[in-house]
């Protein structure tokens, strides 16, 4: 990485964007959007995370090798979430109804 020095004003700009997005996610949480509350919260969080990775963590100015590692990390996480959820969510049983936690705890 032939030393790319990120100037402070970029950092301050990113910080301010993160603050605005934090305010937006808090505001959005109080509006009832049904299932979309989660979607919006995660979308804003991902946007914030992307800003941090690209600018604070310099990924934007890093070699392709670094990009590969970042993409691999996200990809592996996606495999874990997608394959596990595709199993549990499509099973024809309701854990909450079939096995009361009070029984599982033995109380």
């Amino acid at each position, binding site marked *: 990485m032939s030393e790319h020095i990120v100037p402070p004003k970029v950092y301050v700009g990113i910080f301010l964007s993160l603050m605005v997005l934090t305010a937006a996610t808090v505001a959005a949480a109080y509006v009832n959007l049904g299932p979309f509350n989660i979607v919006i*919260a*995660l979308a804003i969080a991902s946007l914030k995370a992307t800003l941090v990775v690209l600018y604070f963590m310099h990924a934007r100015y*890093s070699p392709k090798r670094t990009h590969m*590692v*970042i993409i691999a990390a996200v990809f*592996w996480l996606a495999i*874990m979430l997608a394959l596990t*959820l595709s199993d*549990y969510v499509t099973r024809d049983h309701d854990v909450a109804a079939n096995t009361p936690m009070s029984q599982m705890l033995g109380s």
Partner: protein
Amino acid sequence: MHRTGELYGQFETLEQQKESAALGMWVFLSTEVLFFGGLFMTYTLNRHYYGTAFGVGSNTLDLKLGGLNTIILILSSLTMAMSVWASHVGKRKATTSFLVATLVLGTAFLGVKVIEYKQKFDHHLVPGYHFQIDYRAQHPAPNDDPKEIEAEKEELSKAFAKDPDVNAHAQLYFSLYFGMTGLHALHMIVGAGMLVWLIRQSMLGRFTPTYNTPVEMIGLYWHFVDIVWIYLFPLLYLIDRHR
């Protein structure tokens, strides 16, 4: 280790040395993604099954303290990034000052976390024998807003109607709350320790525009911990507020 000036023996150039460090750090962080990922997976699954209990659990958290901590942590990422910049341009004093600011903010975050944990103990919200999801609604403190307590009571009675086992299921929520924020706090403590070392090295004048790899690598770690919080905050504090 054999070392010539700023260059360790196994490397040809400073650039190669830095790139190797960065690659190693990113590989480490990708294992961290999966480490925390397992907890996020568990959270998602249990939330899927016990949404009602997770909702009431989430709404007992103090949004003001959580929000304050979010601001503190993002601000600490800014000061960390600024110390990387300062070390790149050879401003030694500024490097040290920004590192100290990062350490102060990181410690403030942990202090707020202590206040929050204390609240959970006071409200009987720590999983175990004394756990009682409606403890606060039944035993309000004199300075609690009566309207808020009424709203909480109403929410709880709805929750008990929907899921009679809500007290047991809410313990799952709080186990995950303490597990996830606890692991995150542990990372902050480790980060604070590394910052202390960095500050010392910086005061000794070890970092120059050509050698500042430790500042940058610990910076990467610090920002990663910030990202974990960026996801924890909405998932634990926010997504059930509209109810």
